[in-house]
């Protein structure tokens, strides 16, 4: 065989492979379509079952704290015969419902989840060797409020997969009885805002059970994202004992950290920091100045309002001017500030009027 012949043979092999590849792609498309159609039929059937035989029970017991949920043996038998895919569809449906209810209704959904044995499916996923199955299991159990032990969750905290570590943190926060945020001690990777959003969601779902002292982490954590996260959580939970630790961050070099600290002080209404904030105001970058103005707006003291009006009158920076105008307009609208802006230059009046009427 010459070089040319070998070359042509290779090309012909690639042509044949491409042809077979195309054919295989079509077959896979057909299979996918067939499976989708089958899943759709399954979903329709399950929707019917849920609508006819499970939801009426849920609707009947809605709002009833001492509700005892029972499901027909016939339904349970039918579900017992269902395969894994059907049960997954059922879990997804319950989770979808869970998003829209809270309190007692959430408890009823939880009971249905346990009664149908769907928790076993989720627990099974936690044993899988695939990280995304573990994540799925953790999410399902967290969203359906099915408590799991700290040890079962903590083993995922050391996972190489950030998504799994993140899901484990959320689950730990939801179910740990003693210190739901203990994982902050060991976090060696940056927390993303996405995780913080998840933490907030859990706080909202379990308002009475999750409480923590964020002051220590704000003061001692070596992970900046943990410090920022704790400041936001402290502000959200109105954790006043964190104020001292947050105050300590007003002098750090990092602008972003400082602006988060100022914002948290505003949310916590730490009025005693007012003079410090006013004093540091002239030397700050614009983002920190905006946060100081926001915090002073939250304090609503005579001194803070005086400072805000002064800043509005003297401001040249567009961002500062508009930011303070929006704060003043909100105070005026809420009748917390009686202020007649008629003596202001017409441009300033126009800005203030815009925020008074438009927001």
């Amino acid at each position: 065989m010459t070089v040319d012949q070998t070359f042509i043979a290779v090309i012909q092999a690639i042509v044949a492979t491409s042809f077979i590849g195309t054919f295989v792609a079509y077959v896979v498309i057909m299979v996918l379509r067939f499976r989708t159609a089958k899943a759709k039929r399954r979903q329709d059937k399950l929707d019917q079952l849920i609508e006819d035989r499970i939801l009426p029970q849920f609707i009947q017991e809605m709002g009833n704290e001492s509700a005892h949920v029972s499901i027909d043996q016939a339904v349970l038998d039918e579900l017992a015969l269902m395969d894994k895919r059907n049960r997954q569809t059922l879990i997804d449906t319950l989770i979808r419902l869970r998003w829209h209810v809270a309190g007692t209704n959430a408890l009823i959904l939880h009971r249905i989840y346990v009664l149908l044995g769907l928790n076993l499916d989720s627990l099974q996923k936690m044993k899988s060797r695939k990280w995304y199955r573990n994540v799925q299991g953790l999410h399902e159990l967290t969203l359906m409020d099915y408590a799991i032990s700290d040890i079962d969750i903590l083993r995922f905290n050391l996972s190489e997969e950030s998504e799994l570590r993140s899901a484990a943190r959320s689950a730990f926060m939801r179910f740990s009885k003693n210190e739901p945020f203990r994982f902050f001690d060991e976090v060696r990777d940056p927390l993303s805002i996405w995780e913080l959003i998840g933490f907030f969601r859990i706080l909202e779902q379990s308002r009475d059970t999750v409480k923590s002292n964020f002051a220590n982490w704000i003061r001692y954590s070596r992970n900046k994202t943990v410090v920022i996260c704790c400041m936001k959580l402290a502000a959200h939970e109105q954790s006043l004992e964190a104020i001292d630790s947050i105050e300590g961050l007003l002098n750090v070099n990092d602008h972003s950290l400082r602006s988060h600290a100022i914002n948290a002080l505003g949310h916590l209404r730490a009025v005693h920091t007012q003079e410090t904030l006013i004093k540091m105001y002239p030397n700050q970058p614009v983002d920190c100045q905006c946060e100081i103005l926001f915090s002073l707006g939250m304090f609503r003291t005579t001194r803070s309002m005086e400072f805000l009006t002064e800043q509005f009158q003297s401001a040249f920076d567009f961002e500062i001017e508009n930011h303070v105008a929006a704060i003043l307009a909100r105070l005026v609208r809420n009748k917390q500030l009686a202020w007649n802006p008629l003596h202001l230059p017409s441009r300033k009046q126009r800005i203030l009027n815009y925020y008074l009427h438009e927001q």
Partner: protein
Amino acid sequence: MIQDIIDVFQLFIFSYSSLTMVIYVIMAVLSYKGIMLYRRKNREHYTQNVISSPLSPGISVIAPAYNEGLTIIDNVYALMHLNYPLYEVIIVNDGSTDDTLEKLVEHFELKEVDLPYNEKIKTKAVKRFFRSTNRAYEKLLVIDKENGKGKADASNAGINASKFDYFLCTDVDCILHEDTLSRLMRPILDEKSRSRLKDIQVIPDTGYIHVENNQRRVIAVGAPLRMINSSEVDNGVITRFKPPHKVLPRFQELEYIRAYLLSKMAWSSINCVPNVSGGLGLFDKHIAVKVGGYDPRSFAEDIDMVTRMSVYMIQNNHKYAIRYIPVSLCWTEGPQTLPVFSRQRVRWARGLIQIMLLHRHVLFNFKFKRLGLIVFPYNFLFEFLAPIFEVLGLLFYIYLIVIGAINWENTFTLLAFLYMFSVLVSSIAVLWDQLIERHYRKTSEVIGLCLTAFAEPFIYHPLIVFFSIKGYIQSMFRQKLVWGNMQRKGFASQKSTVKNQA
């Protein structure tokens, strides 16, 4: 001597084609991994958090409108029903000569307001601002400005008037999926550094230690665009997805699936995205303003801005990422006639040549890391030069035929090789699309789209090459570019048209 030149040229063309194919195979693998990872990370209930969270950052949706009177009301309705907790819709009337503004004012009960406006990016004069007196439309802000001869100037005016830290740029004739904002925001909220925290920084003021934050900043996020041409639309919502019936939009549909799901998803997985489309892109406003927004003089303003944003981040030693997600979130009307299609492709070709010249300092420059060593070289070698090599290859074959030096058997084998490979790539792209979402109701519609790939190398590809070369030639002779009108059919009529045809 001539035989030597022929041999070298033949080897060069073959190597170039083979390299292109190897790159496509790598892209297919990377994009598959990216798609599967996205699927695993984005189950339905995972993304619910962002929709209901008070921490979700605000987004300004900016949609320039020029003579869009036919569809403007439906389109604005669609934009105002997005599933996201905090956003505003900014419609920029770019000096329309039809009744676009009047329709907006009348339908959405708009009144003129004195909005504080800071011209951070220079634009043509902004004349008026409108807000609705109806609380139901409080998200809507309409800007009326002088025509800036292109989308860039209008988008810049929208950026200037926007109040949130992120802006989504789209075309007013595009129809967006209701979860567009939450899905595009997720990569921004979820970006993490790949390595665990290591660098320790002592903060002298407090005496305690903080670990350095080594997260990347996501400066832009994009998602696939699709053709809406034959789909059914009702009140700004797509009620039935169909692949386009007409030839040109149908080829474009296939081209878009390939470009977004194979190419851009692959680039995204190695953080080398060259461009976030002007039709749908979420941007970090701070960085966009720093680089001066869109350049109204550019023929490819989207690539240009993304390149300048990347250059800015690299020059300032900031870690950054540009991401693509595989879910189709935006449907747009593709050109249906050859003259309109020709104008679009000539403009794109001229845009590409402009980008290559304007940012030539980036090409093969080690200082610009991936941008200079992967993104720009790929664009230069496989986007910019490809049509030129194809034409040279064709001329070479014609020459060989004329001198009678062609080996027909080998030639057909080589052509079959190129042809079957291009069909395979398109089929894989459709398969990847089916892995993500199955928009088309009927299997026959999907297979029909796959079969389009068999005709593409004969009909569509030669057109693309021709218009690219035409664009390059026009650029060389500095001919004035005609933007022209897209001549939209409008969505309102689409449902009835389809029904009548049936």
